[in-house]
């Protein structure tokens, strides 16, 4: 099944370090299918023009394609309103927008945001920059959120709950619907970081109960530099713009300016038009794929990978949460993660080493750095076996 998906990604015809490419870093960025590469190229080759300005053919076409992508994204997220879709530079751009435009005006003495120990720095630092203090829902040894503690913390009155849908390190799929219903009982708005979720399974925002949802297009088979912020209409309408410039205004004079209504208010300047068009193509492609089969294969490969790594002496998975996407983060006794990654790299195997932008989570597990292998829908059994074989070699070298 992965083979049929894989065939649509031209990069897998390439080698790395002279070896067949074994790409196990989809948590950092996914590869791009031919349809996405074609869509971006077709725009630049055939009808490149700026949006919202020209009345000529190409500009109209670019404008329709760019704004039309809101409807594609809205459908992809379970049928939300298209005027709730803001295009950003990525998940980081989305969390920063909410931090500056939604949170900052409310910040006073004692304002705090509830995060979790498993958050990516992009869901930690923006709240600090907005002037809020932070408290965190603990992560259990199994790599899951401590929901009892979450309930107590929510009762303490945070200004916002900012939680990841899927951990980029542990792979944990968090019980978002449960968390949003707990938060609602205390009147706490909820932002969900969906960066690691959207590429793995369908997300239905009409059922999730969140108030903000963020993701990056490049983790969804689309180009880098584009992302989405979905925000409830009434929340978005009350948020002031946080960057000024062209494209986001209603009227401008030296005395005062008024701003566009709707999502455009948050999209100052010429955006990444080609990237948005690429994202449209990526989502259209994902929607034609059998994602239930993707998820089943992801789970099968994860079970296989966990077993394989568990059999290598000295290899220790950080945690093995029950509900997880295909991510394995581990350490090996005596071998630094960067040495592991380099030895695998020399065999064409791409993994990530370091703290993966989650220093608090690494502190929680008492390790400075880890190695991480993460899957995509094009990941095969052969990839997982290559990782196992590569790690046996690392073990041999460091024995």
């Amino acid at each position, binding site marked *: 099944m992965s083979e049929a998906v894989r065939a649509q990604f031209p990069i897998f015809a390439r080698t790395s370090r002279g070896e067949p490419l074994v790409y196990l870093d989809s948590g950092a960025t996914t590869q791009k299918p031919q349809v996405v590469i074609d869509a971006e190229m077709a725009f630049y080759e055939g009808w490149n023009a700026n949006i919202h300005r020209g009345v000529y053919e190409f500009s109209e076409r670019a404008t329709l394609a760019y704004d039309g992508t809101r409807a594609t994204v809205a459908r992809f997220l379970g049928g939300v309103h298209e005027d709730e879709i803001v295009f950003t530079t990525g998940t980081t751009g989305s969390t920063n927008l909410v931090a500056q435009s939604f949170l900052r005006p409310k910040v006073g003495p004692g304002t705090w945001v509830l995060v979790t120990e498993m958050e990516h720095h992009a869901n930690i630092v923006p709240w600090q920059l907005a002037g809020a203090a932070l408290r965190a829902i603990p992560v259990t040894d199994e790599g899951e959120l401590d929901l009892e503690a979450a309930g107590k913390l929510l009762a303490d009155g945070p200004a916002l709950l900012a939680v990841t849908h899927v951990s980029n390190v542990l792979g944990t799929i968090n019980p978002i619907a449960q968390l949003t219903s707990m938060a609602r009982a205390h009147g706490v708005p909820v932002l969900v970081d969906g960066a690691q979720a959207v590429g793995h399974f369908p997300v239905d925002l009409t059922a999730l109960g969140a108030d903000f949802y963020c993701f990056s297009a490049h983790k969804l088979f689309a180009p880098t530099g584009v992302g989405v912020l979905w925000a409830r209409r009434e929340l978005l309408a009350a948020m002031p713009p946080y960057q000024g410039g062209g494209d986001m205004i209603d009227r401008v004079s030296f005395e005062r300016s008024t701003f566009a209504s709707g999502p455009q208010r948050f999209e100052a300047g010429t955006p990444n038009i080609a990237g948005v068009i690429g994202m449209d193509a990526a989502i259209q492609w994902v929607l034609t794929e059998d994602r239930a089969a993707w998820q089943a294969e992801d789970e099968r490969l994860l079970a296989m990978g966990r077993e394989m790594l568990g059999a290598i002496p000295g290899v220790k998975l950080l945690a093995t949460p029950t509900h997880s996407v295909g991510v394995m983060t581990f350490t090996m006794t005596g071998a630094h993660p*960067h040495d592991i990654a380099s030895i695998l790299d*020399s065999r064409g195997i791409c993994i990530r080493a370091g703290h993966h932008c989650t220093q608090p989570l690494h502190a929680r597990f008492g390790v400075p750095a880890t190695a991480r292998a993460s899957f995509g829908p094009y990941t095969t059994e052969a990839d997982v076996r290559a990782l196992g074989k590569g790690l046996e*070699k690392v073990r041999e*070298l460091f024995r």
Partner: protein
Amino acid sequence: MAGMDEMYQTLIIEHDRSPRNFKRLEAPTHHAEGRNPLCGDEVSLDLTLDAEGRIAEVGFQGQGCAVSRASSSMMTTAIKGKTVPEALELFDQFHAMLTGQPGERDALGKLVAFQGLSVYPMRVKCATMVWHTLKEALKQE
């Protein structure tokens, strides 16, 4: 690629496991600390220069990847007994080798074992970090 395995096999792992001069000096004349955020490598370097300006004693402490520890260990043995200009010339040759620059390699000796790293630019810093720390330490008068 076999180069990487060989590099680890021949030198790095031995020096990673039993690093030479892994100690703090009692009364160093020169000291500096270095950090490589990529791997989280940290090194603390102590030097004692004698009356003729030779590196009489050297010790390092720290943690990090095998490349950085092995490079630190091998640097300490390579610079011991050398004058400051000799040690700096050694760094120039080492750096040129790792960044693929032409130039003399005659002084390098065992340090040529790191040559394979030159095709892994992200890891070159792991090997040169301790040398930059040495340069920092020697700036002190």
